[in-house]
């Protein structure tokens, strides 16, 4: 491993020393290493190795903090396992914080103290990002977003062609040549966003949401350049890149004078924009910002769309994306929408705020270095799906969809994976 640049090391250490509030200080000093968090972690639960215990991930960050910021850490480091930030420690950090954690936060709710473990993991990632130690595959995803406006580097022409194709498909489906998927229109009520996986691999989900907008007679638009709801800068720990990506989207909404930003079906994208975006930019947004699931609930409540749930009669189960449900507070909203759309819902066990991560979160899907681990921990989700006996798994997150599709193949689950827009579109009464 190449030596760490001393200037970058100092910048990384400064992240632990500076604080604008008491949160970081609190969590760095709270863990008692009881180890009771172990069973709540998919990595530990799958591989049963001590290194995957969430407290170990906390400890590696806290041990560096202690070495440079506490009395015992400075004067008697061996007493408190205060570790220097050197190449060995940094390498271990990469494996633990990037390769062994999806930042799902399940351990946080079960921690006997209440240590925000995923917050500390993210802090550790920020330190690694300062030192230029982000896994290459994850960094390339962020680079694509920064350079092209979307994390899959889809050229504008390819994207607009796909949108036009989906518009034609929509017109055929609703038998109305006036049905549209608007691009770059100004002064619309809704500025909608997509996960780039949609135009690249699953364009029918774009058509599904467009059908919902059509049914609701909504004034909406997509952007041809900045339509990407994802923000992998949240995963790579590079705050500057995360800010740039968030700002691009924010500025595009203003440019097109959209009244509301609707965050398409993506857990971390919704989280990064909704909960981190205003903090990245340093101010609250000038426009309203909600997720697609919340918007669909509004449509149902107001009667703008009508649904016949008997059109979705197969048994379905719900995968709860961590960043929308546990970390996003949308448990009731998601259930409301799906109970209005489906007649046969079987909950997983556990479900809701306590549901397990799909295993693909935290940037894992972008980090091919850890594919084997990702699919390994995914068995927990696969077992949940099998036990539910559902034929369809619904989830409002395209990253989760990607992981679930791979689990479906790997563990031969023989289920269909659908987004919320797709299942709602199926039930629409036009």
């Amino acid at each position, binding site marked *: 491993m190449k030596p760490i640049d001393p200037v970058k090391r100092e910048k990384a250490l400064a992240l632990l020393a500076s604080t*604008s509030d*008491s949160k970081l200080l*609190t969590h760095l000093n709270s*863990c008692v290493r009881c*180890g*009771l968090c172990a069973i709540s972690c998919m990595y530990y639960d799958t591989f049963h190795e001590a290194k995957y215990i969430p407290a170990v991930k906390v400890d590696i960050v806290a041990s560096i903090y202690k070495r440079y910021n506490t009395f*015992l850490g400075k004067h008697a480091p061996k007493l408190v396992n205060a570790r220097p930030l050197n190449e060995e420690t940094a390498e271990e950090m990469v494996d633990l914080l990037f390769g062994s954690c999806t930042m799902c936060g399940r351990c946080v709710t079960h921690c006997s103290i*209440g240590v925000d473990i995923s917050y500390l993991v993210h802090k550790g990632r920020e330190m690694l990002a300062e030192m230029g130690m982000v896994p290459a595959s994850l960094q390339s995803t962020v680079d694509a977003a920064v350079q092209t406006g979307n994390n899959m580097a889809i050229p504008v022409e390819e994207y607009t062609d796909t949108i036009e194709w989906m518009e034609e498909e929509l017109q055929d489906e609703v038998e109305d040549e006036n049905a549209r998927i608007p691009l770059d229109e100004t002064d619309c009520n809704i500025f909608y966003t997509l996960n780039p996986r949609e135009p690249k691999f699953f364009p029918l989900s774009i058509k599904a949401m467009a059908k919902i907008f059509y049914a609701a007679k909504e004034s909406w638009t997509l952007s041809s350049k900045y339509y990407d709801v994802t923000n992998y800068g949240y995963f790579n720990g590079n705050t500057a890149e995360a800010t740039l990506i968030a700002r691009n989207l924010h500025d595009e909404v203003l440019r097109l004078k959209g009244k509301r930003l609707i965050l398409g079906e993506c857990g971390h994208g919704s989280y990064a924009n909704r909960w981190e975006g205003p903090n990245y930019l340093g101010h609250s947004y000038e426009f309203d910002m909600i997720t697609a699931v919340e918007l669909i609930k509004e449509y149902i409540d107001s009667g703008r769309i009508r649904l016949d749930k008997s059109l979705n009669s197969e048994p379905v189960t719900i995968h709860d994306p961590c960043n929308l449900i546990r970390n996003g507070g949308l448990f009731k909203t998601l259930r409301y929408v799906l109970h209005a759309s489906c007649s046969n819902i079987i909950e997983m066990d556990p479900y809701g705020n306590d549901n397990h991560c799909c295993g693909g979160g935290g940037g894992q899907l972008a980090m091919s270095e850890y594919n084997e681990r990702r699919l390994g921990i995914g068995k927990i989700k696969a077992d949940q799906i099998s036990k539910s006996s559902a034929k369809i798994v619904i989830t409002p997150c395209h990253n989760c969809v990607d992981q679930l599709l791979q689990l479906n193949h790997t563990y031969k689950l023989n289920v269909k994976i659908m987004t919320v827009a797709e299942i709602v579109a199926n039930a629409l009464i036009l």
Partner: protein
Amino acid sequence: MVVYSAMEWYHILAWVASVICFGIFFGHFIRLIRFGMPKDKAKAQGRTSAGIRYAYINSMMPQHKESAYLHLPTYTAGIIYHLGTFLSLLLLIFSLINIWIGWKIPELLGWILGGCLLISTLCGLGVLIKRIVKQELRSFSNPDDYISNGLTTIFQAITALFMAFPHLPAVEMVYFIISVLFLLWFPLGKTRHILYFFFARLHLGYFYGRRGTWPEH
């Protein structure tokens, strides 16, 4: 009522250690208060006050935590152990003040307190043994874990002894000497979580309360 005319050297040490301990904790507390809560510019979706209340009460109930209901013996031992620590601290404050007042603890009360602390000591010992014996726990433990646990357990044990035999000068001396060691380590080791625990719950409640995740459905 007996009034002591002079403090022994171990009384003085215990007072000094108490002042140092309290001073360090007070410094930590002031720093945490001064830094305040996160200045979150994202629009709240839920009520932080409700989330914070939930964080301190409901979400601490054993049925809500895998760390509790999947580890009931350890959880129970931990609760008793912590109660023993709080009781020992209260009795230490009383003992420090009682150096001048000289109030004699009724024998029965002394035995009851001693008995309770004996149970909590055994719980602490159990937790310590678990850390030593379980390879996984041992693998990421460090001297702080053993010192904190060991010193707290010994502190409870000697408090139990002092409550049962307050009239024995040797016991009293050992009690205050152990207390000195405990008080000096208390704010430096992981035992400082006595303060940070409350702020951790506060931040957790704030985080989940803002998002509407807590209180739970």
